């Protein structure tokens, strides 16, 4: 082995490498642009596609006038029904998205929803006024969120396990509160659920849609704004993207995420009340699998598991997709296909999310 120097001069060598690095980067940039465009718009395409498919599937003949006729997917009755049943998930999944953007998860939202529905119904049944019951239930939601935040951020229990524990806790309490012999709080011989309980979630207020729906719309608008234009939204993304950098910049991650859990609890309670109002009963199992629906909506909307990015607006589109799919499938296949359909949609959403939210090539 002798003293050796590289064949070409170092100057040239450096230029060659720079060009190579630059051209590699240009290639990455181009494919990144294509990918980012797909990322931004695919979900709207998916929604349109699904709606179209379900609209067409039961038509005798293909004509636009039939599209919106009674009995079909896009008829006014059908749309109103879908939107009414979408109220809980629309109310809840926005806050859920914010939490996931910060990199945390709450699996107890379904049970929190059920418990809220039960408590709310119980109060209405026992003569409390709507506003009073409303406020108490919302407070319950805050308390549940506070508990979750405490377990995850203060005691530092893994979010999955902490919220599975609270899932069980809330569910248990809900089941206990329901009077013996009943499966839900709906009224008995001496106490009757007042008819006006339906008003919130069923009575036509505007364009055939009830208060609950418009409240949900308001919630969505507020949360979209929060996510895009407020400190909370920005900090959630910062914590999810690079917690260390966020904390170095002075952000108190513990407090922020704790707040997010409280917000999720609050909206879970709101969603629960909407469900109770719609069904005029408090069913301790009504919220089952709501967390799964939220996760699917969030995944479809392109939020990354690890946090840092995500969009409340797109999650809403995802929620609409879920509602369309479940409603549409009901017309086509028997009810017992629902679970398999949900599972497939979840796994498909996972695969889709993986393809779109992949890390860029690390150079």
């Amino acid at each position, binding site marked *: 082995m002798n003293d050796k120097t*590289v064949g070409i001069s170092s100057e040239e060598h450096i230029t060659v*490498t*720079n060009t190579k690095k630059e051209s590699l980067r240009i290639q990455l940039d181009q494919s990144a642009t294509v990918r980012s465009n797909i990322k931004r718009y695919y979900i709207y395409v998916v929604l349109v596609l699904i709606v179209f498919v379900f609209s067409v599937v039961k038509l005798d003949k293909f004509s636009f006038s039939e599209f919106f006729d009674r009995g079909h997917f896009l008829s006014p009755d059908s749309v109103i029904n879908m939107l009414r049943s979408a109220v809980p998930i629309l109310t809840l999944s926005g806050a859920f998205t914010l939490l996931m953007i910060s990199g945390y998860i709450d699996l107890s939202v379904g049970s929190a929803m059920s418990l809220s529905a039960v408590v709310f119904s119980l109060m209405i049944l026992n003569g409390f006024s709507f506003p009073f019951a409303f406020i108490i239930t919302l407070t319950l939601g805050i308390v549940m969120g506070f508990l979750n935040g405490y377990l995850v951020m203060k005691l530092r229990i893994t979010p999955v396990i902490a919220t599975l524990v609270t899932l069980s806790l809330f569910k248990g309490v809900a089941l206990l509160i329901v009077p013996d012999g009943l499966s839900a709080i709906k009224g008995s011989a001496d106490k009757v659920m007042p008819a006006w309980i339906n008003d919130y979630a069923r009575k036509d207020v505007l364009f055939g849609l009830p208060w609950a729906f418009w409240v949900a719309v308001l919630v969505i608008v507020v949360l979209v704004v929060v996510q895009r234009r*407020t400190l909370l939204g*920005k900090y959630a993304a910062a914590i999810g993207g*690079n917690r260390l*950098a966020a904390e170095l910049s002075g952000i108190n991650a513990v407090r922020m995420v704790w707040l997010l859990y409280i917000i999720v609890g609050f909206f879970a309670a709101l969603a629960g009340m909407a469900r109770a109002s719609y069904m005029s009963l408090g069913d301790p199992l009504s919220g089952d699998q709501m967390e799964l629906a939220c996760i699917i909506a969030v995944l479809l909307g392109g939020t990354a598991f690890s946090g840092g990015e995500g969009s409340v607006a797109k999650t809403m589109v995802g929620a609409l997709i879920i509602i369309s799919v479940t409603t549409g499938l009901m017309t086509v296949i028997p009810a017992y296909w629902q679970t398999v359909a949900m599972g497939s949609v979840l796994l498909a959403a996972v695969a889709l999310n993986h393809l779109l939210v992949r890390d860029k090539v690390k150079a």
Partner: protein
Amino acid sequence: MKSTENVLEIRNLVKDFPGVRAVNDVSFDIKRNTIHCLVGENGAGKSTLIKILTGAYARTSGRILLNGEEYNSHNTRDAKQKGISTLFQELNVVDQLTVEENLTLGMEDTTFGFLRKTDKINKMIGVLNSIEPSIKPNQLVSSLSVAKKQIVEIAKAVAAESDIIIMDEPTAAISESEIGRLFKIIKGLRDNNVTVIYISHRLDEIFELGDYVTVMRDGKHIETKPVSEIQDRSELIKMMIGKTVFEQYTPREEDCPDTILEVKHLSNHRLNDISFDIHEGEIAGFYGLVGAGKTELARAIYGVDEYEGDIMFKGKKLQLAPDKAIAAGIALVPEERRSQGLFTILTIRGNVPVMNMKKISRNGFINDATERNVTLEYVDKLKIATNSIEKEASKLSGGNQQKVVLSKCLFADADLLMLDEPTRGIDVGAKSEIYSLIRRLSKEGKTIIIFSSELPEVMNICDSIYLLYDGSLKSTLRNSCDVDSENILHIVTGGE
């Protein structure tokens, strides 16, 4: 209050760790609004000094005066609030946010929680714009190159009105043209009331950029001088090396004729067209400073990272997987002990046999007695200081942890042993034990490659020395008793 000429005064600073004095009575001044470079070899103490400034370490004794007042910080955030911002090698930006969002992170103006675009914010954006107009505020940081991300961090530090910005090896990961732009920016900072402490081993940069330079060696302050008073590189190098007498290298008795590893035109995102041969039985050393590509090279050979090119080991092409490399007879002692080399929650016994389970098991069943004996054997052979092999690995000292990792790799019975920074953060005693071990292994016929940023280490034991700089193999030479260490340092700091 900024009437003092010195923005920072360091007086008799000492930092001790168990068994080693990393910073030894260091005193010097940093003048306001200058670019003050800090140079020194690995282990010279400069990173420790910086860590004290940023609050990561608490000093053992001595004083620091910032703008004439006592300075003490508990963590990086605290230091930032007091006026010292640091740009680390790991970027502290949030990729998923925009440039503007990163700039203003933690410093936003709000009304009822709503982000507002106030004059303060516009000023911050203006700072970025004046530094580098091609970075648009609404770009996603993830779309920026590393160099531009760095610039965003610089702008953030300036916008936070830091008195001092410390930059630690900032050019390690950026390209030539980007370096030029970075230098312009740094000079602009100086002209705008910011003092920059610039740490780099690339000596040309010192001459191009620096107003002052401080040289450290072995924890001591050697000299602080205006750059204009330094004649040339060799003067700097002499100060960095001093009169260190390298332990005598003993030339090999026999020649090593057979080639065991052939690397042909190896390239990847950090390496440029590297080719070399390693001969069976020799101890080869790859020397270079931060960012030279040593770890990337080790990982490529081991099959951890992707690459283009061919690697032939014992005549057969190596495949891209660590388990295949191990099966072929290569073992790697990784750079990061705790996160890559060790299973810290397991015991010594749980760590040592891991890479060669076959030898302590039969038909897939572990033989406890063999496992214990093997562990005891290595504890003894490597003199690991512990009173039980059931001790949790996280509880051992750095040197002993490294010995456990070494045992793990030795147990793999590899023919080629690669060690990435084998003695980093290890006390002198353990260091020399590891060197004797390496020599012993070589005598037993093993081939050894060391990747190191410590010149004495490489000069001490390696038969052949390969010099890396910026991802390229610049030069190779045979070790002997009178190798020109100045020339070596010259090459690895970017000289020709």
